[in-house]
């Protein structure tokens, strides 16, 4: 039982990292109806940006809460910038092209970043800077809460609340929802859809940037292909929750994180990565719209 609670905590922690990345997929899908395959590579670049900035500032040897904040901001900044550039340079010129062209372009951008990353950063793994000391904050009843777990939870929950506030409580968020619902009607209201789309890429990428620091902290080995597997899982999480749905992405990611943790704990760690594919197949067969996904119905 105590084991189970511990696994529950680990699963939620893993799931909240997936959620940060899944949100980027779902937001871009919501607004452009496309899968941004390069999203996981934006995440990777965030990790490398933090790595280099930490070394440049010399803060990698001196972990503290300040380090965490600086690296989060660094990663968010570079991810946003990259997301913005990708949208401007690769996707915007294809706005009115068939969806398939855009999808292929997204795969191209992803490959470009992965292999470009190997050229620029080197293919060998690097060690992510120490963000903070890992210590046990709470121990008892067979459960251990480490500073890492708590940080992951707090940071990702804060990020998600901030996103929720942005989308549901601000004028900009309303415009985002309007554009994702119907871009031409939104433009009739005075919204410039291109600006909102850019902004969506910025926000989604920034969340991935938060994710890369949290993952770097927990699993401090980074390499240019590090985005592939976690990106795939986050993508499956978004599809599971219902792609395009914000709360769906969070829900899907939590399910994903929890089931992965449980599978590894109670079955075998060899199934860790197979699980994502298994879940994907099952949803595509039984509920292609995902748990919270809905096809909006228009009245005529």
């Amino acid at each position: 039982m105590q084991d189970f609670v511990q696994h529950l905590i680990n699963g939620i922690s893993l799931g909240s990292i997936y959620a940060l990345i899944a949100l980027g997929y779902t937001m871009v899908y919501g607004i452009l109806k496309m899968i941004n395959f390069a999203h996981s590579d934006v995440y990777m670049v965030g990790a490398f940006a933090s790595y280099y900035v930490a070394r440049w500032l010399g803060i990698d040897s001196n972990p503290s809460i300040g380090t965490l904040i600086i690296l989060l901001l660094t990663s968010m900044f570079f991810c946003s910038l990259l997301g913005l550039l990708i949208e401007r340079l690769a996707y915007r010129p294809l706005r009115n092209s068939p969806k398939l062209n855009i999808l292929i372009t997204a795969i191209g951008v992803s490959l470009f970043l992965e292999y470009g990353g190997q050229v620029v950063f080197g293919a060998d793994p690097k060690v992510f800077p120490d963000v903070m000391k890992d210590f046990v904050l709470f121990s008892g009843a067979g459960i251990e809460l480490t500073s890492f777990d708590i940080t992951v939870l707090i940071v990702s929950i804060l990020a998600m609340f901030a996103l929720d506030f942005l989308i549901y409580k601000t004028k900009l968020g309303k415009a985002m929802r309007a554009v994702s619902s119907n871009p031409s009607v939104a433009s009739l209201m005075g919204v410039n859809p291109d600006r909102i789309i850019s902004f969506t890429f910025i926000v989604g990428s920034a969340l991935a940037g938060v994710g890369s620091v949290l993952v770097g902290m927990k699993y401090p080995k980074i390499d240019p292909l590090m985005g592939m597997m976690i990106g795939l899982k986050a993508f499956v999480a978004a599809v599971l929750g219902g792609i395009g749905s914000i709360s769906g992405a969070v829900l899907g990611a939590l399910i994903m994180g929890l089931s992965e943790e449980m599978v590894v704990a109670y079955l075998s760690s060899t199934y860790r990565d197979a699980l994502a594919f298994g879940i994907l197949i099952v949803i595509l067969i039984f509920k292609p719209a995902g748990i919270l996904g809905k096809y909006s119905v228009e009245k005529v």
Partner: protein
Amino acid sequence: MSSAMITTENLNVHYGSIHALKGLNFEVHQGEIVSLIGANGAGKTTTLRAISGLVPVTGSLQFEGHDITKVPVYKRVELGIAQSPEGRGVFPLMSVQENLEMGAYSRKDKAGIKKDYEMCLDLFPRLKERLWQMAGTMSGGEQQMLAISRALMSKPKILLLDEPSLGLAPLIVAQIFEIIKKLNQDGMTILLVEQNARMALKISHRAYVLETGKIVMQDSAANLLNNDEVRKAYLGV
């Protein structure tokens, strides 16, 4: 005569190889209700889309004497052009209130927005009871009221209405036409597209008849109501 709000000269719209508007010349003057009538596919919706900027045009399209063919859609709202689009286009997953707020997206005058918000709710008390309902779950008539109100929330100088009576019960249709008339009496200029030609002509000052992308007739609404051709083709008598 009052000043021209919309003036077009040789206005053309192409959808790929389809030539949807073929050189339209028309005007809408301040304070008027002008109707566009015509069969399905005549180009009525396309005309409104052209004025709002949703489709590229060739020829001249002026708003208050300035050429606006190069002005992007989202800036035409600020100039004073609002449209309630065909099929209403409410944002289904937003509440009634949020839809109305979207209508005022380009405005900054908080007090004015509040005033127009109250005005819309007075105009359509039904919306007031449903402020928190998701627009997508409202009835067709309620959605139409919302779409018109949302357009009004931008405080337009001209209101473009695309088939406000589509799919509505006769009683609601009459109600909506009453409101259009009232808006006009309060000074709003309106360009109205309608299948229901009789109702449209009854409240309009002037009208244009469109056939396959061309204006084939134009006159005062009263004359068109008595015109034999119009009566046969569009009024079903």
